[in-house]
Every structure is written in structure tokens, then in C-alpha cells.
């Protein structure tokens, strides 16, 4: 029996689901390994009977939380798909302000009192609401990594993400270090698996795959000092996908 797979989206750009569509003819191979029973962005067919649920997006409202908990109940395996689901991603940038401040700024003139659609709390990653079995990081996800991880889950294996930094892949690609080009990079502390795609196009890593479990932040700070990058600039970069209140 092929495992039954469902895709669900919450607050996001839906680019990670689009990466699945972007597999082009490889999707046809994927359909050989798994049965897709729900994928609202691309299919009208839908079933609540599934084994593996892929969750894209961050969680922003009580109604979304409720929906996510139902999905968790239905699914044997729950996979967080992409930065918004795995770590909150750019959606967490809003948590710099309180909900009241954001609402005041945003809905000044509109009457939204008591309207559930606008009832937001500070952005949460998926694992701040339910248990997550596996993570497929990145903004957007890497198509090849997606296929690899899905294939492993489909045959009952536990996929593992790289435990080394983006720098390893960047070196392997024989890139000039972008710091040498006068740019900023989070490669030293960010989890690899993207084939160092941004530095390979002479743009610094933005940390979209999340930091390593044991990031060497002091080394990153040394690098920044060496290249004369200000603390303010560094914080802006660190926060882009990995917003945290306070300092690192």
C-alpha cells in the first residue's frame, strides 16, 4: 500500500507547495511512491484519510490552531514544510511588535472588532502548536531534498538533516567566500542541505534553513568583527528568518 499524503497550507506564500509542482516530470515518479489525497492548491479531490501530512506556513490565529490540531489527529506522520512552518520564517518578523501595535497600525480605520478572521496572536512555528515528526527546511524548500526525504519516509526510514554548516557545501562548490566580496553571510551557523545556493550566486546566506543545533555564534561574531560589520546590521540579518526577542 502506498502511503496516503496530504498537503495543507497556513500563513505563507505557498512557494514550498509550488516547489513540489516545480518538480515537473519528477512528480509523476513521486505519484508512483505515494498517493496524494489532498493538495488544495492543485487538486479538487480531498480526503481526510491520510498517513502523512505536510504543513506549509506559520500559525497566526486560534482558528488556524484548531485546524492544525485536527490534522495532527488524523495524520500518522506530520512534516513541517519550509521555513514558515519549521521556524516561523519571515512571518516572525512581525513579533517585534505586539499584536495590539500591529492591529493599530494596520486596521486603524476598519471595523474588525469581534471578527475572527482578524483574530491574530504572535506568529508561531508549527511545533509551537503540535508535535512535528520531520522537518524540510528552507525558503523555499530544496526540491531534491524534498524528494529524498519523502522517499525515505515512504519506506519507513527516518530522514536526517545535515548537521554541518552551509560553508561545507559552499567550499565543495569552490566558491569565493562572499565575505571576501564585501558581503554578509550566515553560512557558518546555518544548517546545510541547500547546496549553498545563495553564496553560489554571490549572495550571502540568509539563514532560511535555520541555525545548527549547536551554532558557533561566537565564531560568527568574530567573522563579523574581522570584516567590520556592525551589530545592528548583524541583528537585522540574523532576524530575517530566525527572529527571536532579545540578542543571540
Amino acid at each position, binding site marked *: 500500500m502506498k502511503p496516503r499524503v496530504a498537503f495543507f497550507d497556513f500563513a505563507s506564500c505557498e512557494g514550498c507547495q509550488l516547489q513540489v509542482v516545480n518538480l515537473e516530470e519528477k512528480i509523476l515518479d513521486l505519484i508512483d511512491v505515494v498517493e496524494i489525497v489532498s493538495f488544495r492548491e*492543485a487538486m479538487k479531490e480531498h480526503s481526510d484519510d491520510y498517513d502523512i501530512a505536510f504543513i506549509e506556513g506559520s500559525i497566526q490565529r486560534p482558528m488556524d490552531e484548531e485546524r492544525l490540531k485536527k490534522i495532527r489527529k488524523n495524520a500518522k506522520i506530520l512534516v513541517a514544510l519550509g521555513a514558515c512552518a519549521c521556524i516561523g520564517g519571515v512571518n516572525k518578523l512581525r513579533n517585534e511588535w505586539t499584536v495590539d501595535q500591529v492591529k493599530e497600525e*494596520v486596521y486603524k480605520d476598519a471595523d474588525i472588532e469581534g471578527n475572527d478572521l482578524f483574530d491574530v496572536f504572535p506568529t508561531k512555528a508549527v511545533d509551537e502548536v503540535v508535535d512535528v515528526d520531520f522537518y524540510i527546511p528552507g525558503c523555499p524548500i530544496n526540491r531534491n531534498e524534498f524528494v529524498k526525504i519523502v522517499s525515505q519516509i515512504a519506506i519507513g526510514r527516518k530522514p536526517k538533516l545535515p548537521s554541518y554548516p552551509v560553508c561545507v557545501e559552499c567550499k565543495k562548490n569552490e566558491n569565493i567566500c562572499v565575505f571576501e566580496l564585501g558581503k554578509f553571510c550566515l553560512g557558518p551557523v546555518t544548517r546545510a542541505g541547500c547546496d549553498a545556493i545563495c553564496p553560489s550566486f554571490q549572495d550571502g546566506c540568509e539563514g532560511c534553513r535555520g541555525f545548527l543545533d549547536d551554532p558557533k555564534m561566537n565564531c560568527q561574531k568574530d567573522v563579523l568583527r574581522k570584516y567590520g560589520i556592525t551589530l545592528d546590521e548583524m541583528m*537585522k540579518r540574523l532576524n530575517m528568518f530566525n527572529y527571536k526577542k532579545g540578542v543571540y
Partner: protein
Amino acid sequence: MPEDVNIHVKHLTRVEGHGNIIFNTKNGKVSNVIWEVDEAPRFFEAFVRGKSYHQLSHITSRICGICSIGHSLASLRATEAAMKVEISEQTELLRRLALHGENMQSHSLHVGYLVAPDLLGAPSVVPLVKTHREAVVKIVRLHKLANYLSDLTCGRTIHPITLEVGGFTAIPTEKQLVEVRKQLVQGMEVTGEVAGIVLANADKLPDFQRETEFIGLTNDDHYAYYKGDIASTDGGRWPPEDYLKIANEYVVPQSTAKHSKHNRDSYMVGALARLNLNYRHLTDEAKAVAEMFGLKPVCHNPYMNSVAQLVEIMDSLVDSTKIINELLSRGLKEEKNEMEIRAGRGVGAVEVPRGILFHDYTIDKLGNCIKANCIIPTNQNHGNIQKDMEAIAPTLLGKPEKEIELTLEMLVRAYDPCISCSTHYLNVKFK
């Protein structure tokens, strides 16, 4: 008395984002017809405040996965206008090429994967893999080619890497451009074949007309995507800086996305709007596709938007080869992006697959964004979708429930709504 009909399509499928259709009749009359958007609001304009000029396009591209190249370019154009940064001709040509890649990607996805199942009587493209394999393979080829062009120009298809303020971090090689040009020429033939398949099933597109206003960019020398003035089929031409006079946004209770109006109750943006405004600048090959369907300006049938997208796929293919020819004859150069940080306000208006997109930033003397506003194509279309629904609803009375549902679903799908874009949502007023 006929029985009351109550249709509630919760989370319409085969569209980007979350929207619902409600249709009720009472005593043989339409009592309620609503296009509802319940996507979670995301507040982009609130949280780009305080971010550095060079981060803005990388953050705002995340408004939308399907049109991330368009968002990046509108963002860069706004930033460059605010800081008075000049770009080279080569940069402009490469950016136009990037937009073509995205336009083809988005349109082939919409026509091939999202609309075609309705024309061929299938719930999705999945069963079509078995019943219409050849047609599916053609669409996959076009989609893949489009993504290849985006990868070449932007580093990757979703959330571009190479696009930056002032130019590019990296550019394709001449060899890569020659290779992609070869494939683009092959793509024209495939597009012609796809158009033939759509034409054979075009009788499924409802013949519905409602006169409305169409808004888009226009310029004097080519079919406008990357730059131009704002134009209306009701007449008038305005510089992009005047966008707030055109897109008058307002809030309705059933939607976390704003609606817009200009001259009438609502207006439409997107491929059909562009075609209606700029038909004369289409390439001959694209005009030939339009003629197959008898599509001429000004067409007031929103269902024809999908056909206009097909016309634009052909146009993007042909224009891309012309741009590549020009780039190759000039010779590609590595350029340095040197600029000064300057305070100012700037507007970027770009045509993205779903229509005209505006980004508007105010930047301080340290290069940080202090105010932002983005007006998204789908926001501008929500009002027109609602008005179309109200106009078509009475004509559906007495039809089987399934048919009513499908006709309304197809109407929304024709607009190719990008709902997560449209709930970026912020009611910013500039004083």
C-alpha cells in the same frame, strides 16, 4: 416554488490561497452571492519597517511564491526610485527576461494545471496524466522551460537570489543564453499545440459579458511588463507615482483582503487587462494565438483571461528571444553595483502575471525603510470578482447545483487569484 439552493464552497481548490464562495437562493431568487477571503493576514508592510534597503526585495518576495520575481522587481524599482539609483541597460534587459520567465511559469501553471481540468471535465491534473498524457507532457515542458529561464536569470525560480538594488549579484553566461534561446524557439511550437487543445475545448468557457474597467501599465514601444504609465480602458494615463488615485482601496467585512475601485464599482487587472490595453504591441505570433480564439480588445468576458494568458505565453517566448538577441549582440558585461544611500520615497509599478503591482517605500538617510505600501493585483480584482458573481448569479437560476457551483468556481479561477498575496494587508495612509 423552486427549491432553495445553498452552495458554500469552503476553501476553493486550484487557486493560490484561501477563499470561499457562497450562493443562496430563496423563493426562486438569488438572496446571497459572496466571494469571501479568509486567508490569515500577514502584515508585511508593518514588519519591513526598520529593515535595510538591501533586504526589502528579499523580504517582500516572500509575499508570494508564484510571483516572487515580480514582487522583487517592484520592490527594487521602488527602492531604486527612492534612493535615485540608476540601472544599466543590460540590467533592464535581464530583468525583463526574468519577468518573462515568471509570466510563462505562472500562466502555464494556471492554464495547464488549474484551468484545464475544468475544460476536460476532471477534478485535477492527476487523472489527466492517464487520460490526456500528451497534453500534460506539453504543459510540463512549457512550465519547465519557464522555470529554466527564471533559474538562469534569478538563480532560482522561487525567491530570486541574484536580483539586487542596482543590478545583479551574478548573471548568466552567453553560452547559457544561446542554449535557452534554442529551447524558447521549441517552446513556441509547443505553445501553438497547447493553444489548439484549449481551442478544441473552449466551448466550456461561459459566454458571459459584464462591462468593466481594465487597468494596467502601458508604454509606447513595447507590451508593458517591466515599466510604463498606468492606463485605463476608460481613458487616461498616469505616472506610477499617482497609483493611490487609481487603486482606491477599501475594507469589506467578508474579507481579510482589501478591495479596490477607480472609475466604476470595480476594475480588473491581469492578462486580459494588459491585452485590452496593449494589443497593438503584441508580437505577431501572439496575435495569431489571440485570433484563433477571436480574442480582440476590448473583451469584457473575464473567463477569457485564461486565453489571454495563453496569448501572453507566446508573447513572452518570442520577446525573450528578441531580448536574448540584443544581449548577445551587445555582449554581456560584469557590472559593479555602486550606489549611495539616500533618503527619499519611491514607487515601483510592475506587471506581474496577475496584473499591476505597486510597491511604495520611504527610506531614511541610513537606508532603512520607514514606511511601506504594497498594492497587489488580486486585491484589485476581488471587487470585480464580486461584481461579476452578482451579475452572473441570476443567469444561473434553475440550473443544476453542480453546474452553478462549477460556473462560479471557474469564474474565480479565471482571475487566477493569488490570495496569500492579497492578504499582505496594511491600510497605510501617506500624509
